[in-house]
């Protein structure tokens, strides 16, 4: 179940508050109950006892006063009798207010009635007899009729008193029972509140802080560069949500780290490749060379090499399949193989065979390299070339009938790096003075327009025919601009071109690339 952190905390505190409220309610009800018992004891039972005692005492006092009057004939005793009568009256009225239950009210009524009988006896018989001087008669009447009435009042008073004692006893047991219940409830509630509070104080912080600690550890691991640190937070609340996002961030950071490393490696690769590119071409008396290379990415699969051995100019333009680092590594390998074979004086056939072996051994089954290897006799203008799975070279003639531009027909050997024997068939072309031999990679031919059309061989030939009157530099610039326009500025592939212009005689001026201006 998904429970938010807010509800977990609110729920815990809610239960605690509920228990505290229950504690308060139980305590309050205990006090209310005690107050009610106290009221019944102190407001009803004890004043009741006092009233009973006072009533009984006042009737006894009345009897004693009358008895004293009969003995000593002192009028003050009659006054005392009257006072006690008023006293009895007062306490009987007070008792009537206190004793409202049936039995107690009945006892009180019976006491009052007996008292009235006693007073009527005194007022109507005893005192008139004494007044008439018949004191012994009065004594006898008082002793015979009055004393039993007073005894009866005392008996009734005792009954009423016992009844009040019972009420007090009842209240005491009720207080005991209620106290026990309340203490039990208080104990249960206190234990409950302590349990909930303890759980909140121990379990909740442990759950929260435990998960937060894991997050902190994971964040520290990220700080150390460890993006694989396992973050095991299973809770379904906000912390769990943060942990999920953190794990996603770990994956993203790891990917970024990999990309940064790749970028670093790419820059190293680019630097290596840049160092391999000929910044300065060797002097080629009798020919001028115009190189052009434009990479679509930091590193690429296109490469070229220019060398002069005696009066023979060797030019190679190669293109490794694919793109990126894999292509760049293969290009570097091919270039290294070509240079190594060239240095040891291998024939063109030996050179391509050796390069083929190297590439076959060192590269994936999907990788291959195409190249054109051309040798120009700088004295005669005779050019021989080997086409290893590459597009044919191109020539721009500049004889008296005006420039003619076309692809050169010739035997097609196979790409390097895949076949056991790629073939070594050569072709030859005779260059006239001012003729230009163009070796280039497929980036020009495979440039794609936004609607998927490729630049292609025919458009390339037409463009070159149109631009053939331009200088080699201008021709390369215009061709590149035309291809870029065709691709709407989105060239995915590298562009490489070498233009070899045979002068016919020894060229006086080297090209900028040959002077090291690039």
């Amino acid at each position: 179940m998904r429970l938010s952190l807010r509800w977990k905390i609110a729920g815990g505190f809610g239960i605690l508050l509920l228990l505290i409220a229950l504690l308060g309610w139980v305590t309050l009800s205990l006090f209310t109950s005690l107050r009610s018992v106290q009221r019944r004891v102190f407001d009803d039972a004890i004043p009741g006892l006092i009233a009973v005692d006072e009533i009984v005492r006042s009737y006894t006092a009345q009897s004693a006063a009358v008895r004293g009057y009969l003995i000593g004939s002192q009028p003050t005793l009659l006054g005392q009798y009257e006072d006690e009568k008023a006293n009895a009256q007062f306490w009987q009225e007070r008792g009537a207010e206190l004793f409202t239950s049936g039995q107690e009210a009945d006892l009180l009524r019976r006491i009052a009635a007996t008292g009235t009988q006693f007073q009527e006896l005194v007022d109507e018989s005893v005192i008139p007899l004494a007044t008439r001087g018949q004191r012994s008669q009065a004594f006898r009447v008082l002793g015979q009729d009055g004393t039993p009435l007073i005894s009866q009042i005392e008996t009734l008073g005792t009954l009423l008193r016992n009844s009040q004692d019972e009420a007090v006893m009842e209240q005491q047991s009720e207080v005991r029972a209620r106290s026990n219940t309340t203490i039990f409830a208080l104990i249960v509630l206190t234990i409950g509140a302590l349990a909930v509070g303890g759980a909140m104080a121990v379990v909740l912080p442990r759950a929260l802080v435990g998960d937060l600690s894991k997050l902190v550890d994971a964040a520290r691991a990220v700080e150390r560069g460890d993006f694989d640190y396992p973050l095991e937070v299973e809770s379904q609340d906000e912390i769990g949500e943060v942990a999920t996002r953190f794990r996603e961030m770990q994956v993203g950071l790891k990917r970024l780290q990999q990309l940064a490393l790749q970028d670093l490696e790419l820059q190293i690769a680019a630097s290596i490749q840049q160092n391999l590119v000929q910044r300065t071409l060797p002097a080629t008396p009798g020919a001028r060379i115009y190189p052009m290379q434009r990479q679509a990415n930091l590193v690429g699969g296109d490469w070229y090499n220019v060398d002069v051995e005696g009066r023979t100019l060797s030019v190679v333009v190669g293109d490794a399949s694919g793109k990126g680092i894999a292509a760049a590594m293969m290009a570097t390998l091919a270039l290294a193989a070509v240079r190594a074979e060239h240095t040891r004086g291998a024939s063109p056939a030996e050179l391509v065979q050796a390069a083929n072996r190297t590439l076959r051994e060192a590269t994936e089954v999907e990788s291959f390299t195409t190249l054109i290897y051309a040798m120009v006799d700088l004295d005669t203008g005779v050019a021989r070339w080997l086409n290893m799975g590459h597009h044919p070279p191109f020539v721009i003639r500049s004889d008296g009938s005006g420039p003619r531009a076309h692809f050169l027909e010739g035997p097609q050997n196979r790409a390097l790096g895949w076949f056991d024997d790629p073939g070594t068939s050569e072709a030859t072309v005779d260059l006239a003075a001012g003729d230009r031999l163009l070796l280039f990679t497929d980036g020009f031919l495979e440039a794609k327009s936004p609607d998927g059309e490729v630049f292609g061989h025919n458009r390339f030939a037409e463009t070159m025919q149109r631009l053939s009157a331009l200088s080699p530099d201008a021709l390369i610039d215009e061709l590149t601009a035309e291809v870029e326009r065709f691709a709407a500025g989105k060239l995915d592939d590298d562009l490489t071109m070498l233009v070899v212009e045979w002068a016919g005689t020894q060229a006086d001026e080297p090209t900028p690339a040959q002077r090291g201006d690039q």
Partner: protein
Amino acid sequence: MAQQKIDIDITSADGFRVLKPTGDLDVYTVGSLRDAIASILEEDTPHVVVDLDSVPFMDSSGLGALMGGVRRLREAGGDLAIACTREQHLKLFTITGFGEGVSIAPTVEEAAEGFRS
């Protein structure tokens, strides 16, 4: 280089599989073809005809994946043939020399004949 997926329809024919990619086969999409061929390598006699009828553009990466497929399938006792009528691709096979030794024909059925010869 961000890899992109292209649709490759894999169907079964009489004793071989037909892979029909739809879209450009270049450095960005070639992984899909490579994966599709790899999935068939596990079969007993993995024979595959790749139908390039719906591939308007193929660069050296696409060609490399096809040639890598030829070598891998042959090593596994199978073979790869190509059904293609597009001039541009046929020219690429001719220029690079990859057209030699691989059965390339206008239709899938004709290309599959290469397995029996």
